[in-house]
């Protein structure tokens, strides 16, 4: 082997709590039974092909269609829409004599529309296919027939094959780890794509296989794995390895999952157990809940409304038709003899007038079908895709540092972005950077670290020390950021400045020995792994959490550099404060007592060069102060004071302590501890933590650290803008109440003059009850307490609102996790919610992921308004999927949140632009577009109806078939798409400058029923004007100098010309933004109508039928035709124009005001 095996680090020992010998659990008894029937012949994949164990290959398809099923499946998808079914039925019926127009003219637009949608589906699927192909063709080394590893494509992997995966490569399938470059067969994997956690996970191989470390050793390797069937559970695996006649249990610890990545390990060998769609990650790839925007839901209602309108007018027509037809014969006399009622078909039979009327009803349903806009759905889809391209392309939402643009992951919800009423935000990583920075510490009762945190500045402002103007704040913050950059090369995770201890000056401090111990603890008490950059020699650290990394980095910067970690030794290079030289000291690592959320602390036991046994411990203040020895409390009061200050400044606190252990004491403890660790009983964990508890006592306090989770850039400004836009913001965080409140101030969520309502269970009564441990009593008391607090809050608000009728006082509600639990129960839900919606900001602290989702659901269902969740971590996924819109921050915490989101942005501050600019625009565009769609189809459809009234409702359309079928597809489609894609009422700059504009979307003013019905009414008026004015001014007398009169065709062309002009000019009137595109589309559509008339009219008469030379011969040379067009078009636009003129002037909407102001 080219790479020598790395010797040494037996991390399996280091992770002491995690280390337990794999033992057969209950589940292993299931092997071979139902659900656990998979058999894998390792190193012998051919065997699977022979026997009954045929497994699928490793190629993965995420496409929706295949080449063969594309047409039927895509068609089926299309006809799930009511409107499309209607049009399909119409097209089918149009082949029967019922049809009012020729079948082809009905089919053509339907085909165009369906074709366009299918093409879109096809293109999307093609993209997915390309991605699949790329993934399937990735290379991996596989063990082949000639006993060497050779490269092959991912898709060719088969179950049972042996593969070699190198550092930083992704695992191609689910593998069982056989051995690795480490002697003890461990490896590290990064599972960011699976669970979103950035820390590395440790995987073990079975001891029996860990020696298989080169090609030769695999020559005779043969084993059988029996395991569970493919399933979607990422956190369990049950299997048995049969090797050398023995059975060994396999668990998730031995498994490497597809989608995760090998880290910090040169290479591993593994055997393929699940391939392709059987892998756990693919089993997990379920569709996220599909979301539809409110506007689309409302649009369905409008479609139904139009359908009822259609049925109504068809019915009215049929009644009149029936009466007229009935009258055609009376007592052997035929009224309209020229229709030959004596010898007629069933459709016009006066003797069977009722049946004729019914059949006519069907005809009329087809005839007035133009009321239903056939191209609406496809236009909206095209528009939304283009809109999301604009979102993706927006440079102002591109984050330079992470090289991430904003991404609209679904185009369904663009317009929903313009209607957000409540934002539910995660804190860590969303409002803050989630990059922990060491800023302060308190050592031996002295506070070090001079910088001020943003929270502190916000608090200072709150007290009125600084001018509270928003502009000053932003410049202040920027100035501060500038400082940090200027002062020196900034180190990630370290923002500490204090001359007293930096640059080795700490030796001159009064308690320099304590300072030394303090930083030694920071440098030793952790589980981080150093990684030396070979090129530069710089050391970086892989740590479980960013907090931990910050400690190690801080220690390094002060002068205690953590160099190397081996199985038993930690190497520290530190400044000796006597000799003032850098010396390397070895610490023998004896035990690691891991961090857990219940213990809230971690310790290591080491032996230093002086042969002292030391227990170094760091932990949360609540867990630590109780464990100090009597002599160790020297600085307790000072430190506590500092801690309080730090907490107020929004910092995360860790208390640092240590103790010396006696040899004897340690020895007896270690014995017990080893026994506990290897015990097989169920309460092993309890035993272990009890023993840890036993040794972590009588500690000596050294000090405390304070770590800042910095606010992201621009967060306060963004929140302020969003608040001005009338959006309510809830912060749901797992942090402590003090931290959350302070962050709230820092990001101007809580503002000066805001009244705080705090709901908490941290009261002495509850504490007392908790000590007694009576659960029912606690629940009862908590319930009562919260009920009381909620009603008190309501009283407060009522009082305030009555007292100060003039000024509106804003309220902020702060509630902690435990109280939230009770508040979300049925009895209190309502009253809690009533309180919460009055408050302009709500902060829920100590909230679990489940609570986050619950709160989201509560807000969504109770307000019925649009909610937006924003978060970055795996713990926010529930919340993101629950909300109407989920926005993922593509930040440090992996891709999980992004993958569950509908939109992803890199920074919280981009939310401002996403909502106020893109949201507002998209909302406005889509709602205008839908309104206009209905307008144009009603304006057109109703002219048909009015004409019918003058044709005894016989079902004769007023226009040539092809004029009609081209109406939606060619003469009016492009301008409306341009409206949907490009229109801007006000520019992006003004959208941001006047956030109040956003209210139009929140209150849904642009898509309210009055407005929709208004547009429809406008359509009816237009149709009336077009029909009656045209007929009145053209009919009967000659329309040209040569005495010709207007016939059926000329009237049709004139009316149609008026319709095309009117709807396109109406568009020109309604939009606010004319680029060359709009000009081209609008005037081009009108020009296209004339071109169409000329071209279609010049085709031979057997093709052009009634349209033959109508324009060139009859209309173009008639001045009356042009005069009527001008007159009718102007008349049909006047009502809308006058309305708009007076409305903008005397009852302006907000965008009108801004437009006028900015003129």
């Amino acid at each position, binding site marked *: 082997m080219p790479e020598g095996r790395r010797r040494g680090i037996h991390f399996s020992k280091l992770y002491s709590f995690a280390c337990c010998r794999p033992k057969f659990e209950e589940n292993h008894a299931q092997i071979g039974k139902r659900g656990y029937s998979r058999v894998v012949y390792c190193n012998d994949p051919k065997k699977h092909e022979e026997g009954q164990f045929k497994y699928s290959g490793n190629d993965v398809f995420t496409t929706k269609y295949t080449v063969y099923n594309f047409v039927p499946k895509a068609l089926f998808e299309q006809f799930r829409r009511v409107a499309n079914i209607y049009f399909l039925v119409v097209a089918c019926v149009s082949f029967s004599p019922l049809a009012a127009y020729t079948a082809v003219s009905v089919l053509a637009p339907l085909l165009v529309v369906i074709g366009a949608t299918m093409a879109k589906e096809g293109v999307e699927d093609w993209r997915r296919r390309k991605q699949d192909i790329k993934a399937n063709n990735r290379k991996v080394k596989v063990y082949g027939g000639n006993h060497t590893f050779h490269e092959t494509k991912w898709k060719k992997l088969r179950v049972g094959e042996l593969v070699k995966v190198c550092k930083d490569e992704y695992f191609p399938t689910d593998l069982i780890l056989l051995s690795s470059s480490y002697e003890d067969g461990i490896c590290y994997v990064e599972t960011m794509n699976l669970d979103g956690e950035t820390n590395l996970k440790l995987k073990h191989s079975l001891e029996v296989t860990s020696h298989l470390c080169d090609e030769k050793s695999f020559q005779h390797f043969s084993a059988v794995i029996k395991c569970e069937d493919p399933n979607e559970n990422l956190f369990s695996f049950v299997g048995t390895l049969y090797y050398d006649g023995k059975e060994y249990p396999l668990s998730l610890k031995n498994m490497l999952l597809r989608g995760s990545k090998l880290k910090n390990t040169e290479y591993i060998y593994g055997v393929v157990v699940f391939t392709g769609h059987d892998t756990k990650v693919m089993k997990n790839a379920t569709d996220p809940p599909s979301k539809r925007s409110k506007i689309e839901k409302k649009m369905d209602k409008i479609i139904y409304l139009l359908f009822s309108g259609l049925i109504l007018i068809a019915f009215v027509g049929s009644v009149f038709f029936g009466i007229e037809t009935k009258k055609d014969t009376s007592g052997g006399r035929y009224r309209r003899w020229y*229709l030959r009622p004596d010898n007629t078909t069933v459709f016009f039979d006066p003797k069977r007038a009722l049946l004729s009327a019914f059949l006519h009803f069907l005809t009329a349903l087809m005839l007035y079908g133009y009321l239903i806009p056939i191209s609406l759905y496809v236009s909206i889809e095209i528009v939304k895709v283009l809109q999301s391209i604009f979102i993706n392309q927006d440079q102002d939402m591109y984050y330079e540092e992470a090289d991430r643009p904003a991404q609209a992951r679904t185009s369904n919800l663009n317009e929903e972005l313009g209607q957000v009423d409540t934002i539910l935000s995660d804190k860590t990583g969303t409002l803050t950077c989630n990059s922990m920075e060491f800023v302060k510490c308190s050592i031996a009762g002295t506070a070090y670290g001079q910088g001020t945190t943003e929270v502190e500045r916000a608090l200072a402002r709150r007290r009125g020390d600084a001018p509270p103007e928003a502009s000053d704040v932003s410049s202040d913050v920027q100035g501060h950021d500038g400082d940090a950059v200027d002062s020196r090369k900034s180190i990630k995770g370290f923002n500490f400045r204090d001359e007293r201890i930096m640059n080795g000056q700490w030796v001159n401090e009064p308690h320099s020995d304590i300072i030394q111990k303090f930083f030694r603890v920071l440098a030793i008490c952790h589980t981080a792994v150093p990684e030396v950059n070979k090129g530069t020699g710089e050391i970086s650290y892989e740590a479980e959490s960013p907090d931990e990394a910050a400690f190690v980095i801080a220690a390094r910067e002060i002068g205690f550099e953590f160099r190397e970690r081996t199985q038993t030794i930690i190497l520290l290079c530190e400044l000796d404060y006597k000799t003032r030289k850098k010396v390397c000291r070895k610490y023998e690592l004896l035990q690691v007592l891991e961090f857990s959320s219940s213990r809230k602390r971690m310790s290591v036991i080491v032996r230093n060069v002086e042969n002292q046994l030391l227990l170094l411990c760091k932990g949360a203040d609540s867990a630590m102060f109780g464990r100090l020895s009597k002599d160790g409390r020297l600085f307790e009061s000072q430190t506590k004071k500092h801690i309080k200050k730090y907490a107020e400044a929004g910092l995360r606190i860790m208390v640092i302590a240590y103790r010396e252990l006696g040899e004897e004491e340690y020895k007896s403890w270690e014995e017990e501890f080893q026994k506990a660790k290897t015990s097989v009983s169920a309460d092993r964990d309890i035993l272990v933590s009890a023993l840890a508890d036993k040794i972590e006592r009588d500690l000596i306090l050294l000090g405390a650290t304070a770590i800042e989770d910095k606010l992201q850039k621009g967060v306060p400004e963004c929140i302020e803008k969003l608040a*001005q836009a009338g959006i309510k913001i809830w912060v749901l965080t797992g942090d402590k109440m003090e931290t959350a409140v302070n962050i709230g101030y820092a990001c101007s969520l809580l503002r000066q003059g805001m009244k705080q309502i705090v709901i908490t269970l941290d009261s002495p009564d509850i504490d007392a009850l908790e000590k007694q441990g009576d659960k029912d009593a606690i629940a009862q008391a908590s319930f009562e307490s919260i009920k009381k607090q909620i009603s008190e809050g309501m009283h407060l608000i009522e009082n305030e609102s009555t007292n100060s009728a003039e000024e509106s006082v804003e309220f902020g509600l702060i509630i902690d996790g435990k109280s939230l639990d009770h508040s979300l129960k049925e009895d209190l839900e309502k009253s809690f919610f009533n309180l919460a919606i009055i408050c302009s900001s709500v902060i829920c602290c100590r909230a679990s992921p489940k609570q986050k989702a619950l709160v989201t659901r509560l807000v969504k269902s109770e307000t019925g308004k649009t909610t937006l969740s924003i978060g970055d971590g795996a713990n926010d996924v529930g919340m993101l999927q629950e909300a109407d819109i989920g926005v993922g921050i593509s930040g440090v915490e992996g891709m999980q949140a992004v993958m569950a989101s509908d939109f992803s942005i890199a920074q919280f501050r981009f939310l401002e632009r996403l909502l106020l600019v893109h949201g507002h625009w998209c909302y406005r565009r889509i709602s205008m577009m839908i309104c206009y769609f209905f307008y144009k189809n009603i304006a057109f459809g109703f002219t048909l109806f009015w004409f019918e009234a003058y044709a005894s409702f016989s079902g004769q359309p007023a226009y040539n078939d092809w004029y009609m079928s081209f109406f939606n597809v060619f003469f009016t489609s492009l301008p409306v798409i341009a409206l949907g894609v490009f229109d801007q009422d006000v520019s992006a700059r003004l959208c941001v400058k006047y956030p109040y504009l956003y209210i139009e979307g929140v209150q849904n003013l642009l898509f309210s029923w009055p407005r929709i019905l208004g547009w429809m009414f406008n359509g009816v008026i237009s149709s009336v004007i077009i029909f009656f004015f045209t007929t009145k001014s053209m009919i009967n007398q000659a329309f040209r100098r040569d005495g010709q009169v207007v016939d059926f065709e000329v009237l049709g062309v004139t009316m149609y010309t008026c319709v095309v002009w009117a709807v396109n000019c109406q568009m020109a009137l309604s939009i606010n933004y004319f680029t060359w595109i709009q000009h081209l589309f609008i005037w081009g559509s009108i020009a296209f109508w004339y071109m169409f008339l000329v071209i279609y009219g010049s085709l031979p008469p057997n093709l052009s039928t009634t349209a033959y030379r109508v324009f060139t011969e009859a209309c173009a040379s008639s001045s009356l035709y042009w005069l009527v067009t001008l007159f009718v078009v102007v008349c049909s636009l006047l009502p809308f124009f006058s309305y708009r003129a007076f409305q903008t002037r005397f009852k302006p909407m907000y965008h009108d005001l801004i437009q006028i102001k900015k003129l």
Partner: protein
Amino acid sequence: MNTKGETSSGGAKDGALDSSSAAKKNSKKPKYSRFTQQELPACKPILTPGWVMTTFIAVGIIFIPIGFASLFASERVVEIVDRYDEDCVPPNYSYNKLAFIQSSATNKTCTKRLTVPKQMKSPIYIYYQLDNFYQNHRRYVKSRSDKQLRSRASEDETSDCKPEAVTKNNSAIVPCGLIAWSLFNDTYGFSVKNKVLEVSKKDIAWKSDQEHKFGSDVYPKNFQSGSLIGGAKLNASIPLSEQEDLIVWMRTAALPTFRKLYGKIETDLEANDEITVVIQNNYNTYSFGGKKRLVLSTTSWIGGKNDFLGVAYLTIGGLCLFMAISFILLYVIKPRPLGDPSYLSWNRGNVTESF
């Protein structure tokens, strides 16, 4: 939608796999163009009071002259309209007009005298105007065979023409269908001061119809030979392209009241001339209560007599001017300073709800 869901779950996974390797080399920064950043140069028309007033006034200023022009044109047209369906029924039949018109024994000739109110310059167009006649009825409109009319070869294409498609012995009727069958058959003879006025029947149909839609090799055949006679008969020796009456009739009217060109008088008529019209009142409009009128009219550039358009133009023009004035008045009475910041505060509770 499902589509999207799968895109994202599948796509993103692979996207994530790719990103680490592909990143850094080529930045994902969106390329700048005015198009993608939605900053294309654009004009943003805004309804300011100035624009509103200008538009109203402009419409008024354009419309009023057009209105006057068309009114004058319409005034110049001399039109004589005479209803004859009642007068041309002898008094003894006035309670049973249907019997009169359906009987072949009755004398349908009828004489009417019309006075020319003003001088009428030639050409004077003669129209007949029918009323309550649904030429736009779907059954009627469809009942024709364009192929048959166009060429002799497709003589038998009569499928749309039922029940006037074929004779009893199954030979095709040319021209077939209800439209041709119900051809108008009243005739008019004109004389002034006992001098017969020539009625020209040439060039009363559309040129394109004559040349391309009605074949010069198609001759009437079996026409009006059934038991029920609809309207006029055709001279079987003249090809359809020359049968201009038929061509005019077959260009169906849009509305139930319509005029059709009957012919032209190529001589001028002086004011107070008395025209004697001899009408053969053959066509049955009595069964459906349709009126029949004879119309003599000159034309101008606007066509026939058409007061509506002129009046409409004037009305709308006037209305626009009125709107402009009232807008100015409202503007003066209730001025609102532009860009009043108080309107831009977000504390304003009510936002107008309107469209």
